[in-house]
């Protein structure tokens, strides 16, 4: 570069604009191609009947797929499961993560080791985690959990094969993998809270519980909100772990909307309906994130 002759009117602002757009263009192009365009295609597909198993039935179907959904009990089941799954894992993660962070904050020497231990679940591939739990942890007779329950006299159970237990197991798996995230972030946040506020509270004779409610929680609120939002996004799009652990089963016991859409599209080869389900999931995600962000910005 170096010295360039200034063209009349070639102001700093204009140069900045050109530079910015040049830097941004590749990213925007890629994103448009890989997210926005496919989105339109998905919407279009959801209006079709594409049945790879019975190709002679394919054709434009309008809003058929969506009206079918209304009467589809499996759909409502998956919606319900999605709410239960997302809600319980997020709540568990935040509550456990926060409690653990508070506890660990008081043993500074243990924090190093715990951080290393906490990293492990996070870096593992969710699919591997699902398989681990399915085989080594939750297997009836040989799994870790079964060993413990048998030792405690609670007997052996089919943790992933029993419809009731399967949902709980799957929630446990997700919570196990992602609580460390909440734990680490909240630990770091709590460590940066100003100590003088606490000292002032002590002088004002606030009890530990009061200090928690009135000082810790409000100060940590932005971090907690962000953790909630991020964990929600992960829970809504959780796929690999459940797929590996139960495949959505037994039956539809753990078939959250995500998995229902996948199974419909790639196992039952009903792509049109699968696309419609995916559109509903997308709408759900957008609505939830909109509310969460509004909540975050409020107050």
């Amino acid at each position, binding site marked *: 570069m*170096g010295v*360039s002759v200034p063209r009349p009117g070639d102001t*700093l602002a204009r140069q*900045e*604009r050109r*530079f*910015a757009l040049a*830097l*941004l263009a590749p*990213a*925007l192009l890629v*994103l448009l191609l*890989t*997210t*926005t365009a496919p*989105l339109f*295609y*998905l919407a279009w597909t959801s209006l079709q009947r594409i049945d790879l198993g019975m190709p002679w039935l394919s054709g434009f179907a309008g809003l058929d797929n969506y009206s079918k959904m209304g009467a589809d009990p499996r759909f409502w089941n998956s919606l319900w499961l999605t709410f239960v799954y997302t809600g319980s894992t997020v709540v568990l993660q935040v509550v456990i993560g926060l409690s*653990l962070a508070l*506890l*660990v904050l*008081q*043993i500074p020497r*243990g924090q190093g080791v715990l*951080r*290393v*231990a906490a*990293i*492990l*679940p*996070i*870096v*593992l*591939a969710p*699919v591997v985690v699902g398989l681990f739990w399915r*085989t*080594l942890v939750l297997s009836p007779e*040989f799994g*870790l959990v079964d*060993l413990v329950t048998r030792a405690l006299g609670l007997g052996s159970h089919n943790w992933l094969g029993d419809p009731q237990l399967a949902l709980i197991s799957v929630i446990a798996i997700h919570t*196990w993998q992602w609580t*460390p*995230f909440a734990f*680490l*972030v909240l630990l*770091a946040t709590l460590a940066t809270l100003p100590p003088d506020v606490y000292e002032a509270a002590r002088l004002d004779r606030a009890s530990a519980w009061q200090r928690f409610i009135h000082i810790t929680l409000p100060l940590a609120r932005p*971090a907690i909100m962000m953790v909630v*939002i991020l964990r929600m*996004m*992960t829970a809504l*799009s959780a*796929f690999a772990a459940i*797929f*590996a652990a139960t495949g959505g089963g037994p039956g539809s016991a753990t078939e959250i909307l*995500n998995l229902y859409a996948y199974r419909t599209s*790639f196992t039952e080869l009903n*792509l049109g309906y699968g696309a419609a389900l*995916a559109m509903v*999931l997308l709408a759900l*995600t957008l609505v939830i994130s909109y509310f969460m962000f509004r909540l975050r910005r409020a107050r």
Partner: protein
Amino acid sequence: MSRGAIRRIALWAVAGMLLAVWAFPVIWALLTSFKTERDVLAYPPVWLFKPTLDNYREVIFGTSSILPNLWSSIVVATASTFLTMLIAVPAAYALARLNYPGRKASGFYVLATQMLPPVGLIIPYYLVLQKIGALDTYSGLTAIYLTFSLPFAIWLMVSYFEDVPYEMEEAALLDRAGRLRALWYVILPQVRGGIAVTTVFVFLNAWNEFLFAVVLGGNRVRPVTVAMFNFISVEQTQWARLAAGAMLAMAPVILIGLFAQRHIVKGLTVGAVKGGGRR
């Protein structure tokens, strides 16, 4: 014992329990990978056993070798990480520090693309890739991986760029550097740490990806996450081999996690406090 001491012991007990819960499954898998199939299925569980390398031998050199899968993973993860960083860093710089029309809109757009559930995207991806014959190819899979890597990388890098004082560019411009050289000589060196952390995260995400790998890959390009299912079939589960395969598949990721642990935690906090992120 004093009240303080009891409290300390209780805290350490909790910490120990945490350690156990989080680390134990991995350690158990590690142990299992050195057992024979018979030892694995023994009850009560065998703690002292004769370790064997048979599982690893089979998983690396045998008929169910996952070496080609490791290779797929390495190629796709590295290529997509490299491409992602190449595109994301300049874009994040523009978003964070430059003024241009549509700045806010493009910021929202990038954020919004992170909200898309992958299940929704694979259907069109599958159909399109099939049409252009890019299914089960390295380039196809790498390109698709950009979908989730790019917004995430941009968002992380934006927060790192925002930490650099704004006068840096101004000083550089007055020093006759011009915009491009200001970015190269003055700004980028100051976000070196952020670039490293972001690269680690992007690589981790790419290595661990399953859904896109299983739907859009095939027999030629089959990352290690998909290969795990080789050891599970309707008839039987090859426990010890699965454990060995999984340990191998997760080795890079675990090593990175252990060595870059401090940076990962910092990255998580930065991402959580300042913006959105996939992990």
